[in-house]
């Protein structure tokens, strides 16, 4: 056990040196690292949100609302298809729980034709990783009494959910970027969730407001013939109209024509600005050519009448059209503060979310608490390390010193691996590192106790050390593997800080096994050859 082949020696030396080099950047501040040439290691361990402050927001897409919207669209498509094909129908209905739209075809003779036409509404889904065809998003079936049922399929819903999540992530990214914070992380979690992590953010409420808005912008005409106040009381509006309230307190009711003139999809830009006459904050916007054409036509036909700008079902302003707006640009004013105008511009620029997102978990840590946690974590870890080293020196003398040196190698290796992995260090993670210090010391204790036993049984120094290492090795492997099982479960099922803890613990256990069985062994072997002791001082 004590003879090292040359290549093994070189390997250990390389690993240990690399460990120190890659751990080194963690001793410097971020700013001083910027001056380091790029070929030198400069990666640091990421600090978790609990240590540097920031927001952790877990959003869930409202699946029911998404299905409802989809069914509403399908219903519209069915209506259009049947009308275009001149097929008489009745009782067009949707069922959210069953995820179906069903319709009665009046003439039995039309059934075949209707089925063929409606089947054209189904879109094939672009399969899985193997590129296979996994069916259509809609299933069209015929039931009794001339009824045709369109059902949203499971793969269809999953596919739509995936695209909704992807679109949401893009939209959220554009909105979060407006805050200019470093390294926000936005990723999918599970089937219908998006996890947003923004380190270092202070105004979490504003962030939440900005992400939480759907951002659906619509331009609609105000129905000049309807009495809004009366409609608000009776809740009754003329056919084709809708009752919408403004964002003011108390809310002002408006009766609008349901038809959407132009929507946010036609926007190409939105910027905060100031009104040239009144000086109040406004948002200026620009339509694409299709939007501009349509808006121009509508404003030409309705000069002198009011129209409403509706955001997420609320009227933000309802100006009167003074002259046709033909250039495709306009501005929205609505008693905004500068920040509100700014946020609205971000919202409009980033596009609408495909569905409403709800916060189901939120954890935010202020920067000062994070800094406090780093300080207390550091202090506790250093005191712990010191106590362990004193104890090891007291218990084993020279062999304790070997163990302490190995401990430094061990800690360097942990930081090197964590930095290279880009792993995140959390407060429990610091405790995890300290715990691995205990585990690393345990390996040395096992070896040293074994050596003591072997000496007592009358072995020569060299033979005792050799036997000590080889016998303790089995125990070290067995006991560490069992610990790893528990830790891997922690990684597999945990999230956030718990996962960070599991990663540090795993890296720590592996590093401690390496240092105990190779690094200290190498130190002891070198010492034995150099000092040729008559007795082992242990």
């Amino acid at each position, binding site marked *: 056990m004590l003879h090292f082949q040359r290549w093994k020696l070189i390997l250990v030396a390389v690993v240990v040196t690399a460990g120190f080099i890659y751990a080194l950047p963690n001793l410097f501040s971020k700013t001083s690292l910027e001056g380091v040439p790029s070929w030198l290691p400069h990666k640091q361990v990421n600090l978790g949100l609990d240590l540097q402050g920031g927001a952790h927001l877990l959003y869930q897409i409202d699946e029911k609302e998404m299905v409802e919207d989809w069914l509403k669209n399908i219903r519209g498509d069915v209506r259009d298809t049947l009308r275009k094909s001149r097929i008489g129908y009745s009782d067009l209905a949707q069922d959210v729980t069953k995820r179906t739209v069903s319709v009665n075809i009046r003439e039995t003779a039309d059934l075949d034709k209707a089925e063929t036409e409606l089947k054209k509404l189904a879109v094939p889904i672009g399969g899985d990783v193997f590129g296979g065809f996994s069916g259509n998003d809609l299933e069209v079936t015929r039931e009794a009494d001339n009824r045709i049922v369109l059902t949203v399929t499971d793969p269809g819903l999953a596919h739509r959910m995936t695209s909704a999540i992807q679109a949401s992530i893009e939209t959220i990214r554009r909105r979060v970027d407006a805050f200019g914070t470093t390294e926000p992380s936005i990723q999918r979690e599970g089937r219908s969730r998006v996890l947003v992590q923004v380190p270092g953010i202070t105004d979490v409420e504003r962030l939440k407001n900005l992400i939480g808005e759907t951002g659906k912008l619509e331009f609609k005409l105000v129905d000049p013939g309807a009495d809004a106040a009366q409609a608000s009381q009776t809740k009754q509006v003329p056919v084709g109209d809708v009752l919408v309230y403004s964002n003011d307190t108390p809310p002002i009711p408006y009766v609008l024509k349901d038809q959407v003139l132009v929507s946010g999809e036609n926007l190409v830009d939105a910027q905060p600005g100031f009104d040239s006459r009144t000086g109040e904050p406004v948002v200026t916007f620009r339509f694409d050519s299709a939007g501009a054409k349509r808006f121009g036509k509508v404003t030409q036909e309705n000069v002198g009448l009011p129209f409403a700008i509706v955001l997420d079902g609320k009227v933000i302003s309802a100006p009167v059209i003074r002259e046709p707006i033909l250039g495709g640009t306009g501005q929205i004013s609505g008693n905004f503060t500068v920040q509100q105008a700014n946020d609205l511009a971000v919202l409009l620029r980033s596009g609408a979310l495909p569905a409403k997102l709800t916060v189901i978990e939120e954890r935010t840590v202020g920067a000062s608490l994070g800094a406090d946690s780093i300080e*207390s974590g550091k202090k506790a870890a250093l005191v712990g390390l010191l106590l362990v080293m004193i104890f090891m020196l007291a218990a084993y003398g020279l062999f304790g010193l070997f163990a302490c040196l190995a401990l430094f190698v061990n800690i360097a290796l942990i930081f090197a691996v964590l930095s290279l992995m880009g792993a995140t260090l959390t407060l429990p993670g610091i405790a995890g590192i300290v*715990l691995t210090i205990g585990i690393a010391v345990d390996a040395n204790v096992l070896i040293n106790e074994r050596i003591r036993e072997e000496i007592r049984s009358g072995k020569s120094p060299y033979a005792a050390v050799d036997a000590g290492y080889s016998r303790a090795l089995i125990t070290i492997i067995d006991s560490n593997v069992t610990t790893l099982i*528990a830790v891997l479960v922690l990684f597999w099922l945990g999230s956030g800080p718990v996962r960070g803890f599991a990663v540090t613990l795993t890296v720590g256990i592996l590093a401690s096994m390496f240092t105990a069985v190779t690094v200290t062994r190498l130190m002891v072997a070198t010492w034995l050859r150099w000092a040729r002791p008559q007795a082992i001082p242990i």
Partner: protein
Amino acid sequence: MFRGIHFVPPDTKIDFVGLRAISWLVSAFLTVVPLILVATIGLNMGIDFQGGTLIEIKTKESPANLAEIRGKVSGLGLGEIQIQEFGAPDAVLIRIASQPNEQEQQQSIAKIKQALGDEVEYRRTEIVGPTISNELIASGTIAVVVALFGILVYVWFRFEWQFAVAAIASLIHDVTGTIGLYSLFQLEFNVSSIAAILTIIGYSLNDKVVIFDRIRENLRKYKRMPLVQLLDLSINETLARAVLTHVTTFLAMLPFLFFGGEAIFGFALAMCWGIVIGAYSSIFVASPLQLILGVRREAWSAAPAPAKGRGAAAARI
């Protein structure tokens, strides 16, 4: 040259297994009392498992005026609100019960902030909705069960089923004992408590495996020694290692109790306790259980099975 202090004398002959009449009682006490505690005073479930809102603030004046804060937030109609000092006189923790739905949960935090104004510093806010808290309960339970099962299989594979069963039984003893600690001191039981429990499981098992290893070795070495004597010998032989390792790990964890800050106090306390109870159960639960379960000697005296080739080969050195 300094040889180091031999904290544990080399040839202890403590009759650990002989103490089993007493130790069974202690172990039973350590298992049953936590169950009674959980049934009566219960666990201080954190918002991770219960849902709800948590706000940590730092006030300008020190100590914080808890009564005034209570007065400001109690009229908001948010249901049960707990207000307590948190680690420092000017740090206050406000906990609001779970609201009927996610939207109201979001509004609860805005309401609190409105009531307290900008005079206080908001150091931490956590909102856990009902969906997530239920998931966390499920995944926490699964984690502990899966870990125990994985360990059962590994120990069974590396040793014998008796060892595996003894290990699991003593780990369950450690887990209930730790949960008892959470209940007794009403420490917040949350996701990091599950992490603590799993870490204790890993650490405690590490200790058991070291003794098991020695038992296995001695079973091969002393073919005719009575089992009681053999178990005692194995425990005594590994006693020095056990004491030294537990003391170092304990020393490493201990500063977190004093300097680690309030956020990690519960975790550190559980870990410290876990080290103690794990050390106890290795000697007084896992080893005597071998006696009841009856370790088969034939398994070790026969030619080494291929699956255990490594351990057997090494033992013949």
